[in-house]
């Protein structure tokens, strides 16, 4: 036998083995959870998946708030080699569903009655047309204020009920030599503050009209001007070294008492807990002050990509069930710091901040005041959200007037349409 024939035969023998070994009982997922608590939380799901007889094949791509993972997915899609499942944020899943790349999950949704278990406000991010394309695992709330209790007590400050009160409290703190608000010049951190102001002052209906429907009259209206005016007041409440500060560093300033407050999603809670601080005792959590309470959600969900391989499909089915399992959702979120996407999970084991999140979500669902967070990609599509980032970011660091900001916003949105 010649060397070539031997080589060919060896290849012929090995190849089928390799491909079966690849397909059997594995679920490959791309996600961007790489921090300690995120990895620990994901392990709850993968262990449960393992108990069902499937192995999780981890394709973590960290960095850039998930943008790197998104790029990895696009490369894989372009190469015709999609993963079994992918962590989806914002409009990413909707776009893929519209491209027809995601499997319809109507069957497990109908069988398990999942629709009744999730808040209707998140439907646009898990359902396109008549088809469910993703299962949500958790829910973060974006519009939180995190405060250092000792600093609040020392200066006689209590939970503010309006943005005017919050700013007045900030001025008191500033006079006392405390940095009132820990913030950064990173435009997403500023936008978190701005969209909280916008929603809290004008209500969720206005927010939907301006930010989700991008209605030009709303965008250029007096409500928008007022929101910029208020953000302009916040401008005076940050310290001099606020440039290039990561959100977790800002949280650290509140934890140490160097700053009094931070306006940030509830991923900030983990930073306090990691320092051994207790909610209500060492730090306070309360929603950004609004006349009518609202709930800004951010969800992580998993979509499953269409494929021909029954082994992969079986793995995807098991994965979807794993993600939506109520017990898994509870254990996952106890570690991750968010609350379950399912609204029917008992709250008893969660901390006070999460309990407040549960209660506020229930109220917001009932009142119809639950909306997606703009900053995290659950309101305007990325090309429009980008304009908000630019304008708000520039407004905050310059002497730009509110009128100029509104004009720039309207022009920018029209340019991106």
């Amino acid at each position, binding site marked *: 036998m010649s060397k070539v024939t031997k080589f060919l035969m060896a290849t012929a023998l090995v190849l089928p083995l390799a491909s079966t070994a690849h397909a059997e009982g594995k679920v490959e997922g791309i996600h961007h959870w790489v921090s300690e608590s995120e990895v620990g939380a994901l392990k709850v799901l993968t262990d449960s998946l393992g108990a069902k007889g499937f192995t999780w094949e981890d394709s973590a791509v960290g960095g850039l708030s998930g943008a790197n993972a998104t790029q990895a997915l*696009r490369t894989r899609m372009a190469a015709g080699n999609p993963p079994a499942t992918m962590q989806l944020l914002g409009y990413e899943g909707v*776009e893929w569903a519209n491209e027809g790349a995601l499997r319809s999950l109507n069957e497990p949704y109908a069988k398990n009655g999942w629709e009744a278990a999730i808040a209707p406000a998140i439907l646009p991010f898990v359902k396109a047309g008549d088809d469910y394309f993703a299962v949500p695992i958790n829910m973060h709330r974006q519009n939180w204020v995190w405060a250092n209790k000792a600093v609040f007590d020392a200066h006689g400050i209590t939970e503010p009920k309006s943005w005017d009160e919050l700013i007045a409290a900030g001025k008191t703190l500033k006079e006392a030599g405390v940095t009132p608000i820990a913030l950064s010049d990173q435009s997403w951190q500023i936008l978190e503050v701005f969209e909280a102001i916008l929603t809290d002052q004008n209500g969720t209906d206005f927010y939907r009209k301006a930010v989700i429907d991008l209605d030009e009259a709303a965008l250029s209206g007096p409500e928008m001007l007022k929101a910029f005016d208020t953000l302009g007041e916040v401008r005076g409440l940050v310290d001099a*070294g606020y440039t*290039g500060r990561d959100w977790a560093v800002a949280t650290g300033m509140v934890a140490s008492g160097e700053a009094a407050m931070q306006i940030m999603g509830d991923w900030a809670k983990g930073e306090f807990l990691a320092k051994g601080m207790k909610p209500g005792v060492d730090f306070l959590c309360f929603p950004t002050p609004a006349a009518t309470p609202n709930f800004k959600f951010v969800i992580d969900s998993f979509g499953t990509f269409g494929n021909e391989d029954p082994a992969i499909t079986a793995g995807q089915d098991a994965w979807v069930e794993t993600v939506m399992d109520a017990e898994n959702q509870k254990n996952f979120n106890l570690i991750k710091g968010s609350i379950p996407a399912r609204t029917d999970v008992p709250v008893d084991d969660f901390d006070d901040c999460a309990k407040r999140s549960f209660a506020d979500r229930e109220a917001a669902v009932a009142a119809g005041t639950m909306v997606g967070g703009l900053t995290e990609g659950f309101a305007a*599509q990325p*090309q429009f959200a*980008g304009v908000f980032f630019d304008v708000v*970011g520039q407004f905050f*660091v310059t002497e730009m007037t509110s009128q100029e900001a509104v004009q720039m916003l309207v022009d920018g949105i029209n340019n*991106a349409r």
Partner: protein
Amino acid sequence: MRRPLTFKDRLAALLPKLVLSPSILAVSVGVYLFIVWTAAISFSSSKMMPRFDFVGLDQYVRLWSTPRWITAVENLFLFTALFLAVTIAIGLFMAILLDQKIRAEGVLRAIYLYPMALSFIVTGTAWKWIMNPTLGVQKVVNDLGWTSFTFDWITRPEVAIYCVVIAAVWQSTGFAMAIFLAGLRGIDNSIIKAAQIEGAGLTRIYLAIIVPMLRPAFLSVIVLLSYISIKSFDLVLALTNAGPGSATEMPSTFMFSATFLRNQMGVGAASAMMMLMTVAAIIVPYLYSELKEDRNGH
């Protein structure tokens, strides 16, 4: 009588082509094909995924009506001009000083060259802290007792771009110095001696004789530094993340965020084409003059 061509002869004739073909193929696919591809995308309505339709110059119009892009272009010119001027001035000065047959020249040369060995990410992060008013230089000076001292450029949009220049100059000066030093070493000593005999002062010798003779070194430094400044991406990202606001936005950071973060692939491709044209405007005349000199037998 002519000898019939043997296999060996043919191979010898073919060999250069054979050896070159993989790299030619790699370059034409990896560079030129994708330039064409990017150009095609820039004329399409592509958003999240590439789409091959034709919308004319729409994306270019959109690009040039984006204020952030205008800032990026202004920054590029300001940054390139300052970065080149300062780096060349300091680099040349250091090279001239080092050329004075001083002791421990090797050690000094290595020290000056070290920043070049760092990645721009490291430089950017370090300078971000150094220039932060509550962490870096300002705090140190204030703590020493000069409390009215301020150095908060990095927090001020109108001057933040100079912070990028400072960090980039720090990183690249040693490199410019090394090239100038090599150029200085290549200058014939007898010319300088002759000038000294004629009674020319040191300043005069440098300005009228040595610096003009460094022309090739200048050309190399200018071309290499301009392309560093056009592709500067990691430095800006690490140092200011294009902020405060969009004050330190550069074409490369704009291209990245449009294409990969904002689902505006068409706009991103249009900005990439604009960058390509800028680079071509610098490189093509340079190549042209180099090739022409080759033909003239230099």
